[in-house]
């Protein structure tokens, strides 16, 4: 792990005194420019985010309650939406159970990513963990990105469990287009991680965070075309669902999983409007996070 990264091109060491502690300073190459330092920063951000995501997963592994929830959630909703009074027959030519299950990951984003991250950001802010991380080497983007990356890993694990349920219990197919599925998951996690950062800024403590997320969860659960196409929803919900970020994630993932009778190119093409909508949401959520997110505890 000896760093040969030309990280600090304009470093001027204060003198020979500094050498003892700073043994083997990185060689600052004379050709290094602002551009290479930007690249080095990006690289450092990525490495930091991965490191922090791994720490998050380690911590999840040590918190048995949280781990149980993470593993149980997809199986529980799978059972809830198929084995109990859910629709029977076929929806848009697909067995109803499988149609519903392939839409579920988008709704799980609300729990696995949004609620989880609002809690994490709020608790860590109040416990001064965020402040400590910010005082270390990682940049703000790397700190938030690390948590989002950890949430993405958990979310993908849950999708895998759900796919297992679909193939084993419902005799359904495996996902048709895994790259598209991953893109959908990535965009969805990005939107909800940024929204979580914004919401944590509004929440004074971890207990109140549980309440603050409820309206969002309610909207996610109601205004989503889970049991049929968007057109089948009642008017006010349909309008809400058509602009909210759950619908595009759901569309992308259902298309990616079931194929929708299209070939691969068509699956990507037909997902482009959804991706555009998600990118707009990412921009909006990033803006909200920028103004609302807080590093320091709320006092008084």
């Amino acid at each position: 792990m000896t760093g040969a990264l030309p990280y600090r091109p304009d470093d001027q060491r204060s003198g020979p005194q500094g050498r003892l502690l700073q043994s083997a300073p990185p060689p600052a190459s004379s050709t290094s420019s602002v551009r290479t330092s930007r690249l080095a920063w990006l690289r450092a951000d990525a490495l930091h985010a991965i490191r922090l995501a791994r720490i998050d997963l380690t911590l999840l592994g040590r918190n048995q309650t949280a781990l149980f929830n993470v593993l149980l959630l997809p199986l529980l909703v799978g059972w809830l939406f198929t084995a109990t009074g859910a629709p029977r027959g076929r929806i848009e030519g697909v067995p109803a159970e499988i149609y519903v299950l392939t839409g579920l990951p988008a709704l799980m984003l609300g729990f696995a990513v949004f609620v989880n991250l609002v809690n994490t950001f709020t608790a860590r802010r109040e416990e001064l963990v965020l402040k400590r991380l910010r005082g270390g080497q990682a940049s703000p983007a790397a700190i938030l990105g690390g948590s989002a990356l950890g949430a993405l890993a958990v979310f993908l694990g849950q999708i895998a469990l759900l796919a297992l349920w679909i193939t084993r219990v419902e005799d359904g197919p495996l996902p048709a287009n895994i790259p598209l599925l991953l893109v959908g998951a990535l965009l969805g996690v990005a939107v909800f991680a940024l929204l979580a950062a914004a919401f944590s800024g509004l929440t004074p403590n971890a207990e109140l965070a549980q309440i603050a997320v409820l309206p969002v969860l309610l909207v996610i659960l109601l205004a989503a075309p889970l049991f049929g196409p968007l057109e089948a929803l009642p008017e006010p919900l349909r309008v809400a669902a058509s602009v909210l970020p759950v619908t595009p994630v759901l569309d992308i993932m259902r298309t990616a999983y079931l194929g929708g009778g299209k070939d691969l190119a068509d699956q990507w093409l037909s997902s482009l409007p959804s991706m555009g909508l998600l990118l707009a949401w990412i921009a909006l959520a990033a803006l909200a996070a920028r103004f609302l997110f807080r590093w320091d505890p709320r006092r008084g």
Partner: protein
Amino acid sequence: MRMTDETTTPSPPGTSGDPAVEVTALRQRYGEFEAVRGISFTVRPGELFALLGTNGAGKTTTMEVLEGFRPAGGGSVRVLGLDPYAQRRRLRPRIGIMLQEGGFLGDLTVAETVAAWQGMAADVGHEPLPGAIELVGLADKAKTRVRQLSGGQKRRLDLALAVVSRPEVLFLDEPTTGMDPEARRDTWTVIGSLKAAGTTILLTTHYLEEAERLADHLAIMHRGEIHSAGTVDEVVADAGDRITFRLPVQPETLRARPGGDLPFLAGTAPTLTYTDGSATVTYTLPGTSSGSPPNGSPGPGTDVPPAARAHAALATLFAWAAGHDLTLERLEVRRGTLEDAFLRVVGEAR
């Protein structure tokens, strides 16, 4: 304040003349409350500078501005020539921060926490400091979860995290608060060795002994202002020397005689304390920063240089005692201490 003294002092050999930390007329307010009211100081490369003050003096606020957590409200700050807030990205790899409290991931072990910080230093191209756990004396706690550490142990872990990236400038916010005396001494040793290795250190403390033992320069802060600054010797000189003795007769008896009142020494009136029928007299002579005596009545001796004031005062005192045929019992002359200087700052501003 005599900041000019510092800027004219030649730099020690091997250091560039540029200060490692430069604070100029820094102001910081929270709503209506002005936590820092226009302070200035300079820390040269390789030196240890202590900000001494009571709780709420503005030490931590000053540190947070220097650490880049918040922009300067007024005035300017530079660390290694960079603006710590606007140029945080360039500065961060070169500084180490020990916060005043908390902020650990409680379910990680000590070893995992330090490894994570070592990794993050490596990620920015800094060869991490090996043996940071041993350095702070937590080797036997390496496998303990952080939440199970005592307050003092957490402070030591905090120190390990602050030095793990081999910083050029180290910020220590009350590094030994909550430690037992032995741990405190160990931490002083660690800080001393970091300084010996050339690290510039800025620390805050409310332990006078800590500042006295470690600091090359220090500043006493009170209610957002620096009241006294310089080397330990200079600040202590501010406190002024003290002369104490016991009067063999009652002051009332003395006063009955012509000219029997106790004299002013270097323009200072005596303080009398009565115990068991005898009176103890104390003079606190003016320190270096006092041009005129605190009570406003200029007297003989104030034109004498501070270092000679005790001598001149004793001459006056002996002459007076001889004139009244008195023997001053248990006569004691002692230099002012850092505690005297500190209490005077706190007391004056009260």
